[in-house]
């Protein structure tokens, strides 16, 4: 299981669950690359057991919520045009 966190700019009860959505998650794996950000298409659930990986929600100003969610990372999203990568 990989652990991620993500920032939500709305109240958590307004976050869409179980539908694919584009978002940024941060990989919390210990080591030099901790907090690496990734644009992904993913499904979320406030049920921590529903999807394979764990997601720790944070609010818009970085507040730690403390209750884990789960996340299904469907695919990575590339935001930078190929010519400039």
């Amino acid at each position, binding site marked *: 299981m990989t652990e991620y966190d993500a*920032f939500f*700019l709305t109240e958590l009860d307004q976050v869409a669950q179980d539908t694919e959505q584009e978002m940024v998650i941060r990989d919390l794996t210990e080591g030099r690359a901790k907090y*690496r950000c990734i644009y992904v298409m993913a499904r979320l659930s406030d049920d921590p057991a529903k999807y394979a990986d764990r997601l720790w929600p*944070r609010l*818009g*100003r*970085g507040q730690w919520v403390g209750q884990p969610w789960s996340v299904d990372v469907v695919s990575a999203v590339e*935001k930078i*045009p190929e010519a400039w990568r």
Partner: protein
Amino acid sequence: MGITYYKDNREFINALRASGDLVDVQQEVDWDLEMGAIVRRVCEMKERSPYFKSIKDYAGFEALGAPLATYRKLAIALGLAPDTPIPDIGKEYTARTSGQGIKPVVVDRSAAPVKRHVFLGDDASLFDLPGPMVHDGDGGRYLATWHMIVAADPDTGDVNWGMYRQMVHDERTMVGPVLPFSDMGKMFYNKSVPRNQPLPFATVIGMDPLAGISACAPAAIPEDEFCGMMMGEPVELVKCETNDLLVPAHAEIVIEGEILPGVMMLEAPFGEYTGYRTSPRDDRTVYRVKAITYRDKPIMMVSNMGIPTDEGQLLRSFSLGLEMEKLLRSQGIPITGVYMLPESTHHLVVIGTRNAYAGIASQIAQLVFGSKLGPWFHQVIVVDQTVDIYNVNEVIHAFSTRCNPATDIHIYRNSAGTPLNPFTPPEDRRVGRGSKVLFDCLFPIDWTRTDTPILVSFNTSYPEDVKEKVLANWQNYGY
């Protein structure tokens, strides 16, 4: 007599150690919050700079925290005695920066320590640098907290050194706000973006202290020439690996790349210089990395924005105030001094003037608010020459007794601001809309001498012979 200055960060570290303004931290520290927490506490206590000798996961790297967060360290950086009074530090800065700019010299890469290790393309990974997680809740690791970004105008070639925060997104991508009224913002948004051309940049970490002060200053000339003025001789630069920009040859670390037009990515939140995490997580400017170079045993720099006093607050206040003083004097305003309080996070400036004519306070406020310095501060207090602008007690006394709430508070709405102002409504933060206020603490010029209140103090209420007698006998009285 020549100017004393430190050619690189390492000479400055030695000077801080010699003056008792540095602590060598031998114990290993974690880049993930621990290093940031130490630096934050140092800033709040106005303590000595921590020099971290061992960083978890990053053998071979060191880090220096809070390099210039006190006036003592600023005085040392300028080659002055550590206990030099603030007005004298200001006079030294003004004297050095009021002449002609000194153009830099370009040195061969063999004479540039920053070229000792070079990583290009995919070999250049931001995660190979000990970028700290500065505060819990930040949107990412911020490599650039005490640094400067070098960029050049695509048409004129004019060089800008500026401090724009940069968050690590992934191995080769950083993201950060570039405000449109900033020097680099004008280059990027007015020229590069309309042409869909990337703007080359170089992030310099661990430059010498005067280069850092120059990058903080709202200089009217290119900062590399401004830095030469402060040094009294040309600053030594070396060409980048992947573009034509020139960077300080003695810097610790340089990150080269391009700022991408037409691409925005999410950045923030971040603990900011106002002492709050204010600006929203939002789409911000993208820096794509092409190369990283560094010295042997490179030293990462860590500033930590929060409640006062960090180096951004101190140096921006210092240089904004003194550049404002130059502006007002150039207009012939009979000011007696300008002091921007670091504790105000460079939002509040106190300006002393002779009360020479009606409306002078308003003229002063409109000049400084209307200048390029304007978006960075919001409150002006104008006092007369009897008030010591560096003495907070005197300023508060003048403000509380001479500023008539009904007639002497002047509000300017719909001004240029930044998304970082905690007091502005969220909708105004999003577009960087601000507001300003003048507190006019001058007694009206048309009050007669019999109507004007007289200040009651030891200095103003006794004949000279009585004051001299009291001072001469002070210890005899038992004090």
